[in-house]
């Protein structure tokens, strides 16, 4: 009797036999709707109240002038037109892109190297765990740790630099070093994690492909460029999409170390949005900035998927 209430549709990934011949009593189109509503209710509240409505409201606010006191006033595209001529905005975009380029460039190459090492040489879970450690520690903690180690006067890194006879470097305090330094700190934090993502992709490459290559006498370099990289490409693209999107939203490290300075040298886009909203109370403008960030991220993801054909595997 109990199977009667089941819809005859085949369950996802399951067997079809349940209920196929049983008469459907409570209507074909409804199924477990009542039950589903109960189960989904808490998540639905969270989704609607904290994801869906804020998304719509964020878009609406971007067309208004709103300084938290009083009500938002509709001003059409004015925020967007002023952003277009806002030098601080263009500066923040340039700074962010510079950060992303350095961060992702080094991180991906190092992580790929680490992943190959994990796959071919160091197979222990312990080593993988140790390399993951920085990623599990809060951004804020990592930022403070490196803020200390890279201190101009007392930091161990500058101490080592001065032993070699080179001049000390104001890592966080100089305009040309601030962004590369923050990018490097986050390379340190994320390289093990990224390596593990790539490692998972490496493990999915069937062993026999390598065996055939080695029987054919292919050199390691040829195996790498001819087999590993093409077969890894879908995973690499996904990893790139995820890490680039994350990288564009860098905030914690900047907030704790330089707060956007010196001058505007490390005012990344999210820092700029934060300052517009919470120090200048310009929520309309800040919302417009985050709409732009949102659009950029969507474009970046789209271009990466399209251009690098991330959704197609070469494994056929």
């Amino acid at each position, binding site marked *: 009797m109990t199977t009667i209430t089941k819809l005859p549709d085949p*369950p996802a990934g399951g067997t079809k036999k349940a209920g196929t011949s049983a008469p459907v009593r409570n209507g074909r189109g409804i199924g477990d709707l009542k*039950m589903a509503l109960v*189960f989904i209710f808490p*998540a639905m509240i969270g989704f609607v109240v904290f994801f869906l409505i804020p998304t719509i409201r964020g878009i609406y606010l971007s067309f208004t002038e709103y300084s938290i006191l009083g009500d938002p006033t509709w001003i059409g595209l004015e925020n967007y037109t002023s952003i277009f001529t806002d030098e601080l905005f263009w500066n923040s975009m340039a700074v962010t892109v510079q950060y992303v380029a350095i961060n992702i460039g080094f991180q991906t190459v190092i992580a790929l*190297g680490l992943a190959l090492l994990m796959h071919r040489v160091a197979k222990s879970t312990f080593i993988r765990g140790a390399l993951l450690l920085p990623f599990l*520690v809060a951004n804020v903690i990592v930022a403070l740790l490196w803020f200390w180690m890279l201190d101009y006067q007392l930091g161990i890194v500058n101490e080592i630099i001065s032993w070699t006879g080179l001049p000390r470097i104001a890592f966080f305090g100089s305009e040309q070093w601030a962004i590369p330094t923050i990018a490097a700190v986050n390379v340190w934090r994320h390289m093990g994690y990224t390596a593990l993502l790539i490692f998972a992709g490496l493990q999915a490459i069937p062993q026999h492909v390598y065996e055939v290559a080695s029987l054919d006498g292919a050199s390691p370099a040829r195996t790498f460029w001819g087999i590993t990289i093409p077969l890894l490409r879908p995973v690499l693209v996904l990893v790139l999409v995820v890490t680039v999107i994350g990288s564009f939203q860098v905030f914690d490290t900047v907030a704790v170390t330089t707060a956007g300075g010196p001058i505007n040298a490390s005012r990344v886009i999210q820092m700029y949005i934060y300052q517009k909203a919470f120090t200048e109370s310009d929520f309309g403008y800040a919302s417009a900035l985050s709409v732009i960030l949102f659009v950029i991220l969507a474009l970046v993801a789209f271009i990466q998927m399209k251009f690098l054909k991330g959704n197609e595997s070469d494994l056929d």
Partner: protein
Amino acid sequence: MTTTSPSRQDAGQPSARHNADSSIRPVIKPRKPINWGRAGAWALVVIALIVTIAPFLWMLRTALSSNHSLAGNAGNLLPADFSWGAFKRVLGLQSPEEAIAEGGSGAAINFWWYLRNSIIVSTLVTAGQVFFSAMAAYAFSRLRWPGREKVFALFLATMMVPPIFTALPNFLMIKNLGLLNTYAGIILPFLFMTPFAIFFLRQFFMSMSREVEEAAMLDGAKKFRIFFQIVLPNAAAPLATLALLTFIGTWNEYFWPLLVGQEENVRVLTVGLGVFKSQSPQGAPDWSGLMAATLIAALPVLLLFIAFGKKVVNSIGFSGVK
């Protein structure tokens, strides 16, 4: 790669088996005196490990130093003028005078409060998020209802929205509700679900065998009982993994509590550490104290990792890519 697999069988295997094995795989290389490529690769592994671990040791070394002595011993690998003072200072076991004498700011840092707040927030968020997401994932995988795939796609789509985008309107809402500087304000946006958590659990629920569930239904069990007595226990491993990831993520969260939890009584550790840094007296920051504080703040995560690290390590890749 083929060279490594037979070595597992070496121990205690009769030689006949061993020979058979090697005749199947003629590619096995004879042992060379030194394989330079392999040695180089191991050297790189060791360098990577040192680069990863050494900063943490430096954190410990600084925390165990006396702050005044750091300046004179910047390059000394051992703690400069060994002292527990920094830990005492952070945990409020030192009087302001003592603290200042050791190079602290003398200002009270209610570290215990921050610790308590971090524990409260992370525990509640983890419990709520995992449980409610599991319920939703069940509805999205094991129940049949019209529009299911569309609603799920909508949930997934919000994964694309950058957190800052929803953070501004969410801040305004929390403010309008009068929940600024309350636990509720910090917790609520993450309490009910994240698209990732639902997605993660749905994968497991979908792969669960239908037979067990059907047997329970013949038994007359209701959906609720099936969920609690069959689905949840069977998914204990992924639930634990998700709980671990959620806890670590919440523990480390900075941006949202920075927006809505500035006041001391609800301030979490990450925000507290930022404040602690800016509190340091000009010119001579309390590095020892700061490193002691960061070390204690990182400790719960490090302990969790030591206990369940394997789970986390093995879950990455699955959750991150697929």
